């Protein structure tokens, strides 16, 4: 099977590979967001599974247990769990990413307990004492896993896991690098599938797919210049192609992102030297998410630069013509961050379209006019 076909299948049949591994006797641990180190789970021999929702399935059962003013991504995940879709999980781990995820952990735990359940506290502040605390939290997490498995963590296996995930990070960056071309030979829709497909399979398998995909894309002939605008996406969870496809259908190339389902989860490597747990704590804590607060740095302009400077690089290197924010509604920290980032990008003369949405494909069509008008405006 070709790489795009395998990716398509994994993307469509989410969880199928993890379920098969579970049925074959492997242990699968489900987790949320970008703060749970895959490396630790892998070193223990678990298959890490990043829990996803479903934008195409209405949320019904969860409404009886979780308030509708909670983040619809979280509600959707919980809804799938209630319907038994995640019954193959042998463990459930949530980081204290935000109010909603933290509260949902308790509700989930109470209604759908797994053989292993754990909540990792993640500091909202960034700084040396936060690194130390998070390191302690990871050590406690490790001790809980040791208790659960009855075996000690093997430091060699942890180092191996760090290396393999860094390899995956390297390859994903390389794949993203191909999007710098104008026009790109790989679409945002394809990239979304590659990322989502990899969320529930062992890293080694994902690495093979990404390598094959890179090879495949490199063989594609360079498309003729089309003058279509290049779009940078910012927001939180986009684990369905519906939105990205809509933007591309309206006449644009989605070329770069800062999403927790995109560059955020793989952009930075874990240091391979020194104490591995400390390296993991440092790496995972600096994940870009509005739920983490960088200490104020200088005046407003300097502070925005300190917070969003990395996005300036993305914009420059991927030659973005416009930015679209896709905020899953009820995310307080994104809703506070959005206007700040908009100010920053507007200063850089980059047009911004800010969209707040319900994480549902049934309403995504209503965004068409907004997106198309934005593209007409920036052309």
């Amino acid at each position: 099977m070709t790489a795009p076909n395998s990716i398509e299948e994994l993307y469509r049949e989410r969880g199928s590979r993890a379920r098969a591994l579970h049925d074959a006797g492997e242990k699968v641990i489900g987790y949320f967001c970008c703060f749970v180190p895959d490396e630790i789970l892998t070193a223990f021999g678990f298959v890490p599974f990043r829990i996803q929702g479903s934008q195409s399935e209405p949320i019904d059962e969860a409404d009886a247990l979780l308030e509708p003013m909670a983040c619809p991504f979280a509600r959707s995940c919980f809804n799938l769990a209630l319907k038994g879709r995640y019954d193959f999980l042998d463990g459930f781990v949530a980081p204290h990413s935000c109010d909603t995820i933290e509260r949902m952990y308790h509700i989930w735990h109470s209604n759908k307990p797994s053989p292993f359940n754990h909540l990792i506290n993640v500091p909202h502040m960034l700084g040396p004492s936060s690194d130390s605390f998070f390191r302690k939290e990871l050590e406690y997490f490790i001790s809980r896993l040791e208790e659960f498995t009855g075996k000690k963590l093997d430091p060699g296996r942890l180092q191996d896991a760090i290396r393999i995930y860094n390899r995956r990070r390297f390859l994903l960056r390389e794949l993203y690098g191909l999007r710098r071309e104008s026009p790109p030979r790989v679409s945002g829709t394809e990239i979304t599938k590659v990322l989502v497909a990899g969320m529930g399979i062992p890293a080694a398998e994902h690495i093979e797919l990404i390598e094959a995909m890179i090879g495949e894309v490199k063989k594609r002939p360079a498309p003729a210049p089309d003058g279509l605008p290049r779009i940078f996406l910012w927001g939180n969870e986009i684990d369905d192609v519906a939105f990205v496809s809509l933007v591309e259908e309206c006449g644009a190339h989605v070329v770069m992102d800062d999403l927790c389902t995109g560059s955020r989860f793989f952009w930075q490597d874990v240091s391979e030297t020194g104490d591995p747990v400390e390296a993991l704590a440092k790496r995972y804590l600096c994940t870009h998410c509005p739920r983490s607060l960088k200490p104020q740095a200088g005046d407003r302009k300097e502070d925005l630069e300190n917070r969003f400077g990395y996005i300036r690089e993305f914009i420059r290197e991927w030659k973005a013509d416009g930015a679209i924010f896709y905020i899953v509604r009820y995310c307080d920290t994104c809703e506070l961050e959005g206007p700040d980032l908009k100010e920053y990008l507007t200063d850089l003369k980059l047009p911004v379209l800010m969209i707040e949405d319900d994480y549902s494909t049934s309403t995504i069509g209503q965004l068409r006019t907004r997106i198309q008008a934005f593209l007409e405006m920036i052309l």
Partner: protein
Amino acid sequence: MPFAGMDIGSTMTKVVIADEQEKILASHIGPTGAEHRHLALKVMDETVKKAALSFDALDFVVATGYGRINVPFADRQITEITCHARGIRSLFPSARIIIDIGGQDSKGIKLDETGKVANFVMNDKCAAGTGRFLEVISETLGINLTDMGDLALSADGFVQISNMCTVFAEHEVTSRLAEGAGVAEIVAGLHEAIASRVVNMTRHLGIEKDVVVTGGGAKNQGLVRAIAGKIGFAVLTPPEPFITGALGAALVGMDFYSRGVRPAKERKKEEVTFFS
């Protein structure tokens, strides 16, 4: 040289044919709606007839509005935001802000000095701040939708309506009636609420002169007055607010044409199937 613009809204389909002087040669309005899908084409035919032209004589056809996507005989599909901006720019070169209040949504559009869209906002997918909100409440009150604006103008003060959720607002209206509030004052309160919502949304763009109110809402003098009250200065309204989107579409087509763009494919004069 005739250019046609077709604006397929949620309730009405509007067609304008304009020439290269930006002069309207003909316009026609007909109903949209699931049961009327064939009527979109009929509105086009009617307009072509009014202009004493043949369909094939049209140099460029642009479709806009909610139903723009599947118009088989259009050369381009352009959003109503770009089209409203273009239409208003032709009618009011001084316009900087456009407030379009339609049946299903409302929009604020900012134009730069050259009349190009600089920024825009659209209301959320709830009915608040749209014609639909007034429609629902007019049914509750048993008043003709078209009489609502004049009723609001006749009111002595207004009753504060704080709920913008249509269902809640219905409750609120019923309670206020039960408390003995006057119907005209309640209707005035509803207009205040919509104006507040729409103007506040538009404030995001930075409001500056001139402001043009268009779309179906511009026909409602009570609403126009409430909007002007919130903004703090008089607003302009086009003589025929329903057709500014279609006019803009025709002119966008003209702009394409003058840039050397020609219809790429043969137009299929088929029914519009956007409700399939």
